[in-house]
């Protein structure tokens, strides 16, 4: 029988978040995908979800979910779980969804597999692929009957269109508990950056501590600009305060999969590789020939970023002018 898979769909700027749609598309391939969408924009987002694979959408358009973190959503999904037992909750890995998943797991004693990059059913059995350390993968499962939770790594799946699919919409009539309105968002502050968003850029030029000092980061920005890409960073220089967190790529930052990734003065720590290893082409510039970043590079240059970057910016400009 087809497996029923629930996907919690987050809303970003009034639209379904890309990481949610990636997971929804995957769920639609695995079985019967049902979406849950909560918050004031939920009703406007819900009808479009059929096209991304949902057969059914549970909707609760209440602004409480936008103001109070985690608990209202946990309560609502818990109520739904009392009525129905899906085979799987397949959720995107975002900070908000992670918090929700952890509590659902504890409240209902549901097994939890995180950081999945693939999953499939072998007959009745779910098999989940999870990267482990630098080079290993683990295949794991929930060895029991009943609902399990899997959190998928961003960019593990691509967003697909299911032309003409229309989702049945069910409006949830839940009363939100006042005692769950505890973690209140008082303010949201955006730290804007120019250029294309890292997640969407097809070219990323990224810098690390090898740039030496914050004033040299402009070389990374300039190369990104001439290539029409976005600048990124390692955690080392984000932690050092050179740049805001939104630039950070890696395990605790963004996962990116551009066509081209240029790593400048980056050692290639496992936590950084976790966020960019999926890039189609990787070029690395590092003065240490043993830097681990070279193990994933298609083209590795052993040299000084501070000399090479200015030359490269000029060379790219020159060749672009000739095209």
């Amino acid at each position, binding site marked *: 029988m087809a497996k029923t898979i629930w996907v919690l769909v987050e809303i970003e700027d009034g639209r379904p978040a890309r990481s949610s749609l990636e997971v929804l598309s995957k769920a639609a391939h695995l079985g019967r995908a049902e979406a849950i969408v909560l918050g004031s924009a939920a009703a406007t987002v819900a009808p479009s979800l059929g096209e991304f694979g949902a057969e059914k959408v549970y909707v609760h358009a209440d602004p409480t979910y936008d103001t109070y973190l985690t608990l209202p959503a946990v309560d609502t999904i818990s109520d739904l779980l009392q009525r129905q037992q899906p085979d799987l909750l397949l959720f995107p890995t975002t*900070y908000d969804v992670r918090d929700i998943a952890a509590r659902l797991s*504890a409240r209902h004693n549901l097994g939890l*597999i995180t950081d999945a990059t693939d999953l499939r059913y072998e007959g009745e059995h779910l098999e989940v692929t999870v990267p482990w350390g630098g*080079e290993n993968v*683990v295949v794991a499962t929930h060895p029991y009957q009943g609902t399990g939770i899997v959190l998928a790594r961003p960019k593990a799946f691509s967003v697909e269109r299911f032309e003409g699919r229309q989702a049945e919409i069910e409006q949830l009539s839940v009363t939100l508990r006042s005692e769950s309105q505890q973690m209140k968002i008082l303010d949201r502050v955006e730290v804007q950056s120019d250029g294309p968003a890292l997640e969407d850029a097809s070219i990323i030029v990224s810098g690390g501590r090898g740039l030496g000092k914050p004033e040299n980061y402009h070389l990374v920005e300039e190369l990104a600009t001439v290539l029409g890409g976005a600048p990124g960073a390692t955690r080392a220089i984000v932690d050092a305060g050179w740049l805001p967190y939104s630039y950070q790529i890696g395990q605790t930052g963004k996962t990116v999969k551009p066509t081209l990734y240029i790593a400048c003065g980056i050692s290639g720590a496992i936590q950084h590789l976790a966020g960019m290893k999926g890039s189609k082409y990787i070029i690395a510039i590092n003065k240490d020939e043993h830097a681990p970043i070279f193990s994933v590079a298609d083209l590795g240059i052993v040299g*000084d970023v501070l000399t090479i970057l200015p030359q490269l910016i000029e060379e790219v400009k020159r060749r672009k002018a000739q095209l």
Partner: protein
Amino acid sequence: MKIFVCVKQIPDPNTVESKLDPATKRLVRTGVSLVLDPGDETTIAAAIKLRDSLGNSELTAISMGPASAQEALRRALAMGVDRAILISDPALAGSDVLGTARTLAAALKRENPDLIFCSTESTDGYTGMVPGAIAEFLGLPQLTFAREITVEGSKAVIKRVTQTGYEVVESPLPAVVTIASGSFEAIYPTMKGIMSARKKPFSQLSLSDLGLESSQVGEAGAREQILSIGKAEARAAGQIIKDEGNAAEIIADFLQRHQLL
């Protein structure tokens, strides 16, 4: 105020590539150097800072792990934590997120904490799920991914990191708070700190002290199972070239060849 910080001992991420034993499917902990999770060091620094600013407060570090984990707790004490609790029991081996959180929650419950600090995620497991599960087991709110925390009266307010900036979030106490790694200056233990750590209260608990059944934790209680461990698809090794003044051209050629210009 009674403040707690949950910390874990892990294989040193700077020198050890963490491995799973193909037979037991557990983390290899023997013969590798073990350290206090560097993420937890940041969290301890945040907790110490808050304790000192509040005054009249006690900070306790708590860890669930094998006997060796007392080293990690000793380091926490040397950094300035006041007291340590180690929960250690053979039945806890192989615990998953729920088993770990259930155990820590049971130990924390006995202490009536006002505030429980965790790291946003551990460096070895990085599920980031234990803190939320602890909060649920204790019926407490959770404030996650904090870069800053202030406590006013019976409320905590944090700056919570988001993809595009930050949110200001408040919650009543008691609460679980998770700290984003790197957001607080590390504290290095001084000689004096290390000496005084030996005299600080250190208690050890077993499963029966917590009133938990061995079927609820450890491998017996785990809700997930590892089926196999394999090698990830390696990227084909690329070309590595030493710059002899023509690196810019070599890179530009590569870009042109792959139509990236």
